[in-house]
């Protein structure tokens, strides 16, 4: 059993992801008011609205207005992640993260991940998919991504019944396993792309300390968004890219304590 510090964030994330889904499911099954709805739209304790801002954006693109409550809910989500938590929705809330993490764990275990091989698709694809989502919403008059989103099918399925929704979730699993490592969450998903865009200036950041680094490169091996770590072994600074999901895996694998959670502004950061 590895020491606790090597999986404390991983465990916390799983607890966070599972308990959020459990609260939703129990809310539906037993009528608890703690958390009701799903990750698209929900109410906390029967009053506080939370809305997926990317869904609201698509509804606007579909030339429709949403209620003030939903607008407020989207604003709360945007402010929380943009100002404080960064792109942590992807690694601490979204249940699809468990699916893709499993796929990528297998991918590495059975040697499908060949380092240095050029990617099948670009990491910028997700931003194109955002543009497509909005364009298709405009053309069809319905929120385009919400209709095909494997994420929604997964969390809605976990709360209200899966139906045939597992097919698309399995497709995501196989896509990550065989086609492209970190393919869905790190290349394609427009919701992750949206959270990347709004998280550019958030407070909570991974920080790197060059003087402690021994260049083992474990952090880069484990990171699902390696392009956010160009400073490793070169400069001491915060990871400022919005594409970092604050999952904390780099902190856990670093034996030299060269990575830690911190805040964006700090004296050692010039």
């Amino acid at each position, binding site marked *: 059993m590895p020491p606790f510090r090597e999986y404390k964030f991983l465990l916390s994330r799983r607890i966070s992801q599972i308990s959020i889904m459990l609260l939703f499911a129990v*809310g*539906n099954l037993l*009528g608890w008011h703690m958390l*009701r*709805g*799903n990750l*698209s*739209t*929900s*109410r906390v304790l029967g009053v506080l*609205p939370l*809305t*997926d801002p990317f*869904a609201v954006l698509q*509804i606007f693109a*579909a*030339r*429709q*207005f*949403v*209620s003030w*409550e*939903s607008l407020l*809910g989207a604003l709360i989500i945007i402010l929380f992640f943009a100002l404080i938590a960064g792109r942590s929705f992807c690694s601490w809330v979204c249940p699809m993260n468990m699916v893709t993490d499993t796929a990528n764990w297998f991918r590495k275990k059975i040697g499908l991940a060949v380092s240095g091989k050029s990617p099948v698709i670009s990491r*910028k694809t997700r931003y*194109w*998919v955002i*543009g*497509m989502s909005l*364009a*298709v919403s405009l*053309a*069809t*008059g*319905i*929120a*385009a991504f*919400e*209709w*095909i989103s494997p994420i*929604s*099918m997964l969390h*809605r*399925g976990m*709360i*209200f*019944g*899966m*139906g*045939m*929704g597992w*097919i*698309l979730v399995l497709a995501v699993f196989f896509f990550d396993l065989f086609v492209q490592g970190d393919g869905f969450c790190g290349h394609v998903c427009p919701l992750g792309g949206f959270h990347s865009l709004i998280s550019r200036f958030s407070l909570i950041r991974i920080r790197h300390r060059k003087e402690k680094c021994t260049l083992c490169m474990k952090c880069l091996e484990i990171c699902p968004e390696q392009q956010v770590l160009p400073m490793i072994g070169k400069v001491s600074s915060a990871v400022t890219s919005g594409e970092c999901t604050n999952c904390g895996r780099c902190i856990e694998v670093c034996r030299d304590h060269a990575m830690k959670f911190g805040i964006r502004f700090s004296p050692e950061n010039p």
Partner: protein
Amino acid sequence: MPERRKFLLTMARGLGAATVGGLVWTGFLDGKKAYPTVLRPPGAVPERDFLAKCTKCGLCVEACPYQALVLAKPGDERPLGTPYFRMRENPCRMCRDIPCTVSCPTGALDPSLVSDSDDQGKASLNVNRTRIGLAVIDRETCIAYWGIQCDACYRTCPVIDKAITVEHIRNERTGKHAILGPVVHSDFCTGCGMCERACVTKKAAIFVLPRQLVMGESSDRYVRGWESTDEERMSGVPEDTTTVTPRSEKSPLDYLNKGDL
């Protein structure tokens, strides 16, 4: 290759791929959104707007004390993730506080569509204004129209004697009995589906369909002179009634006599 040219090429390639993807996506959704027979919760805005506004959160489903509403799962052959009724299994019970409608956070279910406003303009919920759909009777399989006594739909109707009445028709076959035939009235039918569930035939002979699917619309110029207010429908209609066709444009009156038939 110069930086600028490389950038432009990359952008053009991305735009091309995105266009292909977007077209496929649009085509797929266009086929997916046309489910004309889906029955929405009380207070649902028109289907086109509903499909755009509903975020598929399921709060209306959770609010329903009878678990009558369900979210469409992949494979249900309904717009994915949206709430709908299956009347034969579990119809709407028309709760007075309409918990499903008031629970909607996005405005896809609008309480004002199922509310009355009093003299001061204060709105109060009135579940009888619900228009989920309209009950339709297949007279050929309805056993009441065969002359067998059955009034299951009539008895279960929450708007009994308004939404469903029973009409006495002479039974021509026997010459001495009456047929007690149920008749649905669209002015009062809420589309709750209680009749569809109660129907005793193997497959329901009375069933709910969306209103726009089963109702016609008469022209404004046909006025029911025996109803004092019906003439008001004429107010916005232009007085000129001339119909212009390619032929009448040339000679509206005399084409019969001009020999160019």
